[in-house]
């Protein structure tokens, strides 16, 4: 089995075109009979031997009919892959231990519908099967369980089919050209060795927050009805929106010193948890590890940047 990946490298693979699509061409399609195909061949052979023995001409006819079907089916299985256009979508980062969703879009440029097509990675372990209607496209979602943090390089993708009769399997390899980030697995709780520094924020009470009530202001469209002070409204003083703030009062700077007594992976998990918690608690946070420093900030992009730093800690960035 260890030979197989090497063989795959030797095999003809479909390269990504300049426009970002893979085009399956005739010379890149492999085809072999399936177990059913071999059974079918055995049946035809048995029929042939019987027909020869009994010099039974109708037997010959039926045998040759099935034989013709067999060869035609080989052609149609091959044709079911030909000219497909495949687009590999960027995979969203996931946390280690979770399942990544690897997405492909298979386009069918022809006016004949394509029967069941299988898109798979890792020797067919993780796969998705779907039909692709004529002149249309279909999303294929392959669930990939990931264990380790860092870059995950998606293995050579195999596009295969056994349509229409399951007697043959045709397949084509798509050259691997896709990777995604796997963040460290967050630990259950943020329990640092020593309490981090929470430094107060100068303009904390002016921002728009969620924790402490600050003041009323006039209602504007698109304000959440939850934040409307209905009691004020009941007193017939018009629609007033409650303003909150006070949650940016603290800044958190995370670094490896906080978790230095823990093993590396556990430490990274701990920091991951801290980042996630800080993000949900609306605490401004930053990250400083070895030679990289991300200034204190807040928001989705910031969080992903921090998590990426943790994911690639101690690994070659690639």
């Amino acid at each position, binding site marked *: 089995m260890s030979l197989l990946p090497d063989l795959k490298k030797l095999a003809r693979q479909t390269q990504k075109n300049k*426009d970002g699509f893979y085009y399956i061409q005739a010379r890149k399609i492999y085809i072999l009979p399936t177990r059913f195909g071999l059974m079918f061949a055995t049946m035809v052979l048995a029929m042939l031997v019987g027909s*020869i*023995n009994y010099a039974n001409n*109708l*037997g010959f006819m039926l045998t040759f009919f099935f034989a*013709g*079907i067999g060869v035609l089916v080989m052609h149609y299985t091959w044709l079911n892959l030909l000219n497909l256009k495949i*687009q590999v979508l960027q995979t969203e980062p996931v946390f280690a231990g979770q399942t990544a969703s690897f997405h492909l879009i298979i386009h069918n440029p022809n006016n004949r519908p394509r029967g069941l097509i299988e898109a798979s990675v890792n020797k067919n*372990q993780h796969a998705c099967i779907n039909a692709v209607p004529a002149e249309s496209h279909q999303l294929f979602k392959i669930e990939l369980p990931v264990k380790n943090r860092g870059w995950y390089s998606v293995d050579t993708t195999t596009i295969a089919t056994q349509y229409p009769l*399951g007697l043959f399997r045709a397949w084509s390899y798509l050259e691997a050209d896709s990777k995604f980030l796997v963040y460290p697995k967050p630990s259950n709780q943020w329990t640092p060795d020593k309490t981090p520094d929470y430094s107060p924020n100068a303009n904390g009470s002016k921002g728009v927050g969620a924790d402490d009530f600050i003041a009323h202001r006039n209602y504007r469209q698109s304000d959440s009805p939850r934040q409307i002070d209905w009691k004020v409204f009941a007193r017939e003083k018009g629609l007033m929106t409650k303003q909150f703030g006070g949650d940016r009062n603290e800044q958190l700077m995370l670094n490896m010193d906080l978790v230095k007594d823990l093993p590396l992976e556990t430490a990274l998990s701990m920091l991951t948890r801290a980042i996630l918690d800080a993000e949900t608690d609306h605490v401004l946070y930053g990250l400083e590890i070895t030679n990289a420093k991300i200034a204190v900030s807040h928001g989705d992009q910031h969080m992903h940047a921090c998590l990426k730093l943790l994911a690639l800690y101690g690994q070659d960035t690639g």
Partner: protein
Amino acid sequence: MNLKEFNKQPLKDFQLYLLTVLLFFSVLPHFFNLSIYISLFFTAVLGLRIVTYRLKLKALPRWFIFLSLAIGIFVVVFLYSGKIGKDFGVSLLVAMLSLKILEVKTRRDAYVLCFITGFMLVTQFLYSQEILFSLYIFVMAVLILGYLFWLNQAAWNVDSVSNLKSIFRLTLQALPVMVVLFILFPRLQGPLWGFDQGVSSAVTGISDTITPGSISQLSRSSATAFRVKFDDINDLPAPEYRYWRGPVITQTDGISWQADKNEKPDKISYQSKGTPVNYQLTIEPTQQQWLFALDLPSTIPSKTFVTSNYSVKTEEKINKRSTYALSSSPYYAIKDSSDYELLEALLLPTNITPRMTRFVNEMMKDSPSDQDYISAILNFFNKQEFVYTLSPPVMLDNPADEFLFDHRKGFCEHYASSFVLLMRMADIPARIVAGYQGGEWNPTGEHLIVRQSDAHAWTEVWLEDSGWVRIDPTSAVSPERVEQSIDPTSESSTGEVVFKISSDSMLGTLYKEAAWMLDSLDLNWHRWVVGFSQKRQSRLLDSSGLGFLKGYKLGIAAIVMTFVVLIVMTLLFRNKIKDKRDQARVYWDKFTRKLNKKGIKIEPYDGPETIAMNAAIILPEQKPSIDLITRYYIKAHYGKNVSSKLLSDFKKLVAEFR
């Protein structure tokens, strides 16, 4: 889910029901071939499967399946003990098949079952190769393929018509491949191993024994006995010369008549007058060795021989429909006979009654010569009130005596047998010849159809100066018999024979022509399909200038031609672009590919105008031509009444775009 797991999916309810139904109809014709116990076993197991499924019972336990298997094998072995042949093999196959369906669960099981059923279908042809039957088997084969096709669909949707269409297309493409392989596949002579080669059971025909009523029984059947195609239509003999010679019958115990031993003789000779006529005789299986040559045969095919009394016999029993090439001389004289033969033709049974002797003596008194005596007897049959009937009264004790003097009602075997006895009593050697007389001319297929209703018995008497002479006493009573065929379907209430008379009514003519056409189709089916042999193959190749293809060369030609036909068929059935709109789309795709090469990013969801806009930003100097092509495309793809001119202009613009 990957494809492997897909194949392991359990079958849905209706998938299983459909499989069961297909299986039942594939095996059904075997019910008539195999023992009733096998059929019962098969039906019972199938029923059991349906019941367990309907009641949502769990899968049957292993021990139960093994027990059923044991019972099945026991039944088969018990029924065919010691006779390992096709019946045994097929029965075993049916038993296995029915048990396989007991444990069918997944799509994979369904596949195995379909393949076994496919093989089972071919065994059906061991029993019959009739045209309609073959059609039925092929339909079943296509349905099984269609079933496998269905199993490979993403969802078992109701859109089954398009599924059927696909499998129909596949069938149409496979048929030419089948024909090419059928013609070119090298045929072997003789079997690979020697199981019983029988194809179909015999239709009762003329046999070695004649008892009163045996031929009249035959005459009620309109089944075809054999068909004759003359090489030259002008050779067709007149109706009164259409005697098809079967066994010659000399020995009698006074009630039944037994054919001679008919060993292969050392030599035979007779004088023929006129040139012999050549013809091909296609006989239905009889399980006997008689070949009914036109009286009298002159050349015979290989693996047959002529007996000392000029009947043609095959070396093996005729157990399937076969064609033989023969020639005969309708005008002949047999002047040779051994003394033993003549002596045998004079032997009388013990039950000659006094009134028979009195009658013969009386007749002989008035006849100076043998010739006169024969005429007198024929006259007696003619003048007295003899009735030619299909249902004569039962005459068991002394048929000849009772027939001649009491009932005077009989069919040809009565006339022939009593005539022979009357001859022998007058010391004239005489014998019965059984066979067929007449035949219906099929103008569509230009051949003669001889039916069981044409079965006949006539006599031969030995005259010193002319040898064995054919005399048909039946013609003395009913001359129509020799000129027209009996109509076995219509019999008058009194039992008198009704003859076929040409019906002039419109419907009658139509019916007749349809029947002739079917008959002709049947004969050609046999000539070109069922009876296609190595001989016919090489003759066909020779006549089409491909005679050099022999042995392995033929095999290579078969493979090469198969692939040629496959390529032609796949090209022929390629999806063609029918709509002009779709054609416009093809040119537009070409255009976007060109843009793509120039580095313009095109998303699959981009419309033509977006693409044109993006392209114009990167290629500002080509904006006019890009805009023009886009306008053309919008017109051709979305507009009404797209002209071919518009389309060709559009194509040109795309081609010129650099």
